[in-house]
């Protein structure tokens, strides 16, 4: 019965899904092939006479340039720190927001709000209203304590970017983890309480293992987005000071739209694809293993 059903299905649905699969395939492959193609070309928008096949020249100059390695490291630092902040804080807040307290619906709404603010706007808010050394809220607070104002984007550029991106993505982690916590069987918690589990034992032995799956999902989805953080950097530090906050996405932007070197930018793009795939490979492997266990 079951096999007969799947058999007829396969025959019937193939022509129906083909168009969309084809479109998606082209959608993915055309840009990829063009990027690959450009990465082997001499292609500078400022100088149309320079053209022709470049071989590995674009790659060679890129790899020889220390900016690439700085950008790669920055990308990994940014991804790892924001992941750390959002997952740890998100888990703790999820536990908190699962408790009954006065005004919880309002508090939930407020903490989820940053997710609805678009990246450029939130970067502007942080740059001009919160972290500004003269007009910012943080500067006001430190001054009122008699301390000096901190030039966040000058002296702590990466920390500032991590703060902004974490602020935007904490609601996402919280939302996923909160729904996961709500699915935890209450009788399990009661059984653990009768077994003598206090708050911390309850967290580490019951709640955290229950959240393992949800945390994996958060890590996976967030990594994909954090590899390509761009707007926050463009608005606040423009990759600086120096290259302190230039990640791969921003480096590609510098090469292509500031230096008009499409060839070098494409080579950077290819390297970004390789990096993303390396990260994804390890990530998917470890997470798949943990999901199988869970």
């Amino acid at each position, binding site marked *: 019965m079951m096999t007969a059903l799947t058999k007829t299905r396969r025959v019937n649905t193939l022509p129906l899904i083909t168009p969309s699969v084809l479109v998606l395939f082209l959608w993915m492959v055309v840009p990829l092939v063009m990027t690959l193609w450009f990465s082997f070309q001499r292609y500078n928008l400022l100088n149309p006479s320079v053209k022709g096949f470049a071989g590995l020249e674009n790659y060679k100059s890129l790899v020889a340039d220390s900016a690439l390695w700085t950008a790669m490291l920055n990308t990994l630092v940014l991804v790892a720190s924001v992941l750390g902040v959002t997952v740890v804080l998100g888990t703790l807040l999820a536990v908190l927001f699962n408790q009954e307290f006065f005004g919880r619906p309002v508090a939930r709404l407020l903490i989820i709000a940053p997710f609805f603010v678009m990246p450029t706007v939130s970067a502007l808010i942080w740059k001009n209203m919160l972290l500004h050394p003269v007009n910012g809220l943080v500067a006001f607070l430190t001054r009122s304590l008699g301390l000096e104002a901190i030039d966040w984007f000058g002296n702590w550029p990466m920390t500032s970017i991590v703060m902004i991106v974490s602020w935007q993505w904490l609601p996402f982690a919280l939302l996923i983890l909160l729904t996961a916590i709500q699915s935890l*069987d209450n*009788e*399990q918690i*009661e*059984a*653990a*309480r*009768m*077994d*003598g*589990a206090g708050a911390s*034992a309850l967290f580490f*032995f*019951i709640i955290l*293992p*229950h959240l*393992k799956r949800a945390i994996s999902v958060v890590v996976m989805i967030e990594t994909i987005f954090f590899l390509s953080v761009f707007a926050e950097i463009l608005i606040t530090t423009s990759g600086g000071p120096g290259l302190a906050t230039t990640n791969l996405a921003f480096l590609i932007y510098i090469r292509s739209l500031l230096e008009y070197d499409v060839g070098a930018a494409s080579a950077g793009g290819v390297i970004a694809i390789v990096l993303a795939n390396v990260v994804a490979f390890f990530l998917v492997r470890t997470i798949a293993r943990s999901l199988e266990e*869970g």
Partner: protein
Amino acid sequence: MASVKLRDIRKTFGRTEVLRGIDLEIEDREFVVFVGPSGCGKSTLLRLIAGLEEITEGDLLIDGQRVNDTPPDRRGLAMVFQSYALYPHMTVADNMGFSLRLAGATKDERDRKVREAARALQLEPLLDRKPRELSGGQRQRVAIGRAIVRNPKVFLFDEPLSNLDAGLRVQMRIEIARLHESLDATMIYVTHDQVEAMTLADRIVVLRDGAIEQTGTPLDLYNHPENIFVAEFIGSPKMNLLPVRVKTVSDDNVTVTLPDGGALDVPVKSDQLGADEQVTLGVRPERMRISERGQFVGQVLVAERLGSETYLYLQIEGGEMLTIETDGDSLARIHDRVAVEVKGENCHLFNSAGEAVGRAD
């Protein structure tokens, strides 16, 4: 040694009063079953004893010590939950040893105690499995094993068999009865199933709307229900109840007029009743007999044949329904008219308030 004493226990959720003054003494090694329809407060009462809910008013004493404010893990209790509440990411052994681990027991001690409990419940081959790899009955046994490992003074069971299929339920019922025998522990058991209550209990506590209706041994409740509610709740199929009128009253005997106009002598204390009073006559289906001389004549609407016995559902003159139990090979068929005989000494009488009129003996 563990006795549990409840003194005027009350529980309110917001404005709703869920338990309205429960007084009960549970003796050491007693198997007490709380039974009642859903919403009667039996589970809440168990959770109050466990310490999972706060007691609004009254005293809870375990071994003479007031434990109202003692956290659940220090009351010396273990609970088996309806959903078993096993920790899904831990193996069976870890599940059973969790309380010991939290208490700081060494690994050797933990292993030893877990193995001991596992042996008693035939769980040894399953110790390395995760709960999701177990069947319902096995999970149930692990949940019980987890309780045993703690070596509690009192075991609490919250409808532990309601998620099992009928065959397994009977088997687990026997296992729990044997466990009570071998552990010599006090057990408190909550169920809505009167068969479980009758078969397991030393003493049954029947609850309704947050108050105790009657407490007693299973046979006590069966033979001497104190009111209509208990009479209907205990026994399967339900007791037949018929509105009748008192005809005459004499010493230790009340004569009532039956629907067909005949009279029936019921040997009960007569001092509370007067002539012409409206009362309810209660007869258990298994105490009724098909007979030529029967006082009730009715038409068979349904015949349920269980093999060992047959239940006949009759509509008697006047429209009342009667259930009777008869032989498995009874020849009665649907639409047949049969006469049913009732003996006065097998009948219960309830006054207009629903309270049983005491037996004369």
